[in-house]
């Protein structure tokens, strides 16, 4: 019987299941992963504050899922690979090269928003410069597109790989089944990343599916399936790197399921006290917070001091504040622009 691989799932640890050198990463890489994770977190927190102040209409957060996103993006090649993120993927965006200013322009729906010129909702990421493809609000509809994007690369003889993300809730859709089956048959180079945070709004995983692991479905499609500790950035990096290497070698797609957690409500007007306990959430806000996990690993291995890490964090916050202040001052679109972009210009 084919089995899915499990990485970092046997025991709960404070740091990482994986040694950075064993997966080919340097001290500098680890500190860069840390920087990206705190930058994502600070941007996320500040963006929420801005929404609460009534300056933006809507906010949805990726807080708690940074290790999953950044570990995965770090194993890919921005500029060459394709990205079809889902709405929590602030970490993916920053890791592929989008700046806090880029993302802030989208939040404020400004004229120069690189995602869409103020047409898309916030968190519907897009960025032509980094091959980030915009998405539709109905969940998982980007999965079939990933199969097509990857096939196009393959057809042209390129070794670009396509990343596509979705929640465990989104894996209940037909798009998931059809997209995976299709990519498997055509051996399209796709990294299917299921960010399993255990809830689809208020609905717990056990009410969404009768299996323990979304990744187990990979068996039925004939592709490798991997379950990984999504709070462990190095473990996610490791399994993604392996999947990307396979895909570049022409061996087809992989389904990776990162077990993670969102430490905030579903969106700016969800009350998560109605469906989960504070104790459960608190675990992921403290010892199992992905940033705490990486910090612990760095300190355990003496890659940096507490002060150095605090400094990185402080700089990240300053970077974010600058970006939000700047973006707020940028020009708004004018009503006439509503008529643009219906048909492609000749």
């Amino acid at each position, binding site marked *: 019987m084919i089995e899915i691989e499990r990485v970092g799932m046997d025991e709960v640890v404070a740091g990482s299941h994986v040694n950075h050198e064993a997966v080919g990463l340097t001290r500098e890489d680890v500190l860069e992963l840390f920087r990206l994770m705190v930058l994502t977190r600070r941007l996320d927190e500040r963006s929420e504050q801005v929404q609460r102040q009534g300056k933006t209409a809507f906010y949805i957060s990726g807080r708690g899922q940074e290790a999953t996103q950044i570990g995965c993006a770090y194993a890919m090649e921005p500029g060459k690979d394709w990205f079809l993120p889902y709405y929590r993927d602030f970490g993916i965006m920053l890791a592929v090269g989008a700046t806090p200013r880029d993302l802030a322009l989208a939040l404020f729906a400004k004229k120069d928003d690189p995602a*869409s010129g*103020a047409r898309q909702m916030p968190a519907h990421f897009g960025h032509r410069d980094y091959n980030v493809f915009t998405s539709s609000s109905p969940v998982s509809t980007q999965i079939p597109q990933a199969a097509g994007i990857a096939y196009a690369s393959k057809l042209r003889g390129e070794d670009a790989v396509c990343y596509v993300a979705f929640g465990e809730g989104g894996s209940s859709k*037909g798009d998931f089944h059809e997209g995976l089956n299709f990519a498997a048959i055509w051996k399209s180079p796709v990294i299917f990343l299921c960010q399993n945070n255990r809830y689809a709004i*208020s609905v717990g995983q056990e009410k969404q599916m009768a299996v323990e692991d979304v990744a187990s479905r990979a068996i039925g499609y004939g592709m490798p399936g991997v379950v990984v500790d999504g709070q462990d950035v190095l473990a996610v990096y490791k399994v993604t790197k392996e999947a990307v290497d396979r895909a570049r070698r022409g061996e087809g797609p992989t389904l990776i399921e990162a077990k993670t957690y969102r430490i905030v409500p579903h*969106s700016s*007007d969800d009350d998560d006290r109605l469906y989960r306990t504070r104790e459960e959430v608190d675990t992921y806000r403290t010892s199992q917070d992905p940033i705490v996990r990486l910090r612990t690993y760095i300190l355990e291995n003496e890659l940096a001091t507490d002060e150095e890490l605090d400094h990185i964090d402080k700089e990240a916050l300053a970077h974010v504040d600058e970006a939000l202040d700047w973006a707020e001052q940028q020009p*708004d679109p004018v009503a*006439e*622009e509503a008529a643009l972009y219906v048909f492609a210009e000749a």
Partner: protein
Amino acid sequence: MAEEQEKVAEAEAEDVSAAAEADQEALPQEAQEASGESAPEAEQAEAVQTEQRERPNKMRMVDAINWAMIDEMRADEDVFLMGEEVAGGSGGTYGASRGMLEEFGERRIRNTPISEMVIGGAAVGAAMNGLKPIAEYMTANFAMLGMDAIVNHAAKIYSMFGGQFNVPVTYRMAATWSQNSATHSQTIEGWFAHVPGLKVVYPGTPKDAYGMLRAAIQDPDPVIFYESINLYYNRRLAEEIPADMAPIPLDRNVVKREGSDVTILTYGRMLSVCLGAAAKLEKEGISAEVVDMRVLRPLDLEPALASFKKTYRAVVATDDWRSVGMGAELAASLYEHGFDYLDAPIERVAQKEVPTPYNRTLELSAFPDEEDVINAVKKVIR
């Protein structure tokens, strides 16, 4: 934020045009709800506070829908509700199924996985096997993902089985726009109204919603029941609805405001907007008759036609895009049956033909408002 909006609304005069404005005021809050999130904070606070659920004296749109389902489920064991989040702690995404899990249990109030195709298809199956499912799509946009089940199965099975099986499903779906952007703001009632075998209704007042939802659930055929989130929490529209109110038959459109100079055909969210416009036009000496086209299929044109034979002029106002939408059908039907009475070309008020933009300025410029209706009326009157 929601409370502030309520206060703004409260402060406004007690007329319908204020209702239309309050509707606009309330939009930013709803933007968030429609993105697939749970009920607004005010809703939740209420839900936590009121243990004992009493039938509200005056019902808003969302209450009317809630109580129509409750009353129907009390009356008929075969009725059950399924959809995403319907059994959630706050009573569904918008609070429309509040208190229902507590009263009817998980057997009859069922959360589904995010599987729109199955919501559509399983409802058809359960209906053929004797139940009366209420299948909720979180928004009309997501019903697109269940289109095959609705259009190819629910609508056609009675015919394809030579009348041996009917499909008594009610597909409830909420339409809205309020910074939800391109794929989240669509109101595709015209898609459904195109299909023989489907009944399509789109109420614009709580009483109509209550009476028509009860009728829809009882109906032996599949009914597409449209709800406007933009109207859900509007207290201006709240009205008393007795538990023994008779269901409203699904074959009757009605005049909602009498007038003699021009006929306005509209439904759903735009009903309030048109009533507001009519009130303003009155002050300018123009008397507009507003016909609520709450039943879109099978289309009951009679009241509109009767009005048109009196005014000789008509405006059709919808939230939908102009081309090949419901507004086109309404205008064409009037031309067809009322040609001899025509004094001016029929004007259409509709959404700009662009994918709905997120930015508030762009969005507002795309959707029709009171002023657009007033301008259209003046054009046909001239």
